[in-house]
């Protein structure tokens, strides 16, 4: 039993990879906070997308490297990605439903 687990563990990243990932996560967090304190940047339409992209990158790095989803069995990826996509879809649909996002139909016609 533990052999099977050890088999998976063999493919886990090394200690140095873990430290590099921590450094990257720290740098991204610093950039996020730095963006927050730039009034000129906050006023632009790029502020929110930039933060969302940086946050998504951090999320993906932790899931892939620290949670080992990059190295583990495909079934685990399915078990996580399926509900995660449903959760994301739920948030987006609710934002439309409650008027937080809007599609300007006049632009489409």
């Amino acid at each position, binding site marked *: 039993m533990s052999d099977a687990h050890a088999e998976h563990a063999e493919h886990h990243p090394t200690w140095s990879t873990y430290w590099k990932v*921590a450094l990257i996560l720290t740098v991204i967090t610093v950039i996020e906070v730095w963006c927050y304190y730039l009034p000129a940047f906050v006023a632009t339409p790029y502020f929110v997308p930039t*933060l969302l992209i940086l946050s998504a990158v951090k999320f993906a790095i932790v899931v892939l490297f620290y949670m080992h989803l990059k190295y583990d069995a495909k079934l*685990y990826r399915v078990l996580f990605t399926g509900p995660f996509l449903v959760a994301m879809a739920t948030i987006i649909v609710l934002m439309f439903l409650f008027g937080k996002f809007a599609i300007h139909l006049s632009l489409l016609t």
Partner: protein
Amino acid sequence: MTATAADVGHGYTTTGLPHRKIAIWAFIGSECMLFASLISTYLIYKGRSIAGPFPHEAWTDPSTHHVYKAILNIPVTSCSTFVLLMSSLAMVLALAAVENRDVPKHTLGDRILGSSKLWLFTTAALGATFLSFQAYEFTSFVHEGLTIRTNLFGSSFFTLTGFHGAHVTAGVLWLLTMLGIDFKRGLGPKDALNVDIMALYWHFVDVVWIAIFTLIYLIK
């Protein structure tokens, strides 16, 4: 890899994967939906509070003329975010130490990296530090006039971050239990699956905070 009936009986499914690890991933999937509902609620109510205090803007109470400053304290929360990220690093080092318990350690660096007790304790301590930051934040909010009943922002904010804090608390208790077992009989490769499951839960708590930090604290 073919799983025999004996394998299944000893905790492995017919997929050849341990059922407890499949279960924790399914649990994490369901937790994604729980936090998605809480985050949605916060975002839907965002900007719809009639009375302050507000997260990013100052507010003057028209009846008392008392000025409430913007409630969120970004420097403090940035520190607590950093603490939680570092706890994830300590967690993976703890798992690696347990998996490599039998590997000979020649240098002091090897012994430090290979000490599961050190890294489990560090993870639990960083988790407790994060909770202390949250307790400080909640207390200061209440002193500044924001409670769970003050306005829509207060209700959705305390519910979301409170649920996350409860998850961190459960994680710290789990870590301390595992640390106690490590002190009592030592954790080795045969325990790696148990530590791995705990690590997955801990990292999930961390990724939820990554989303909360951006959506609630940084986006104005």
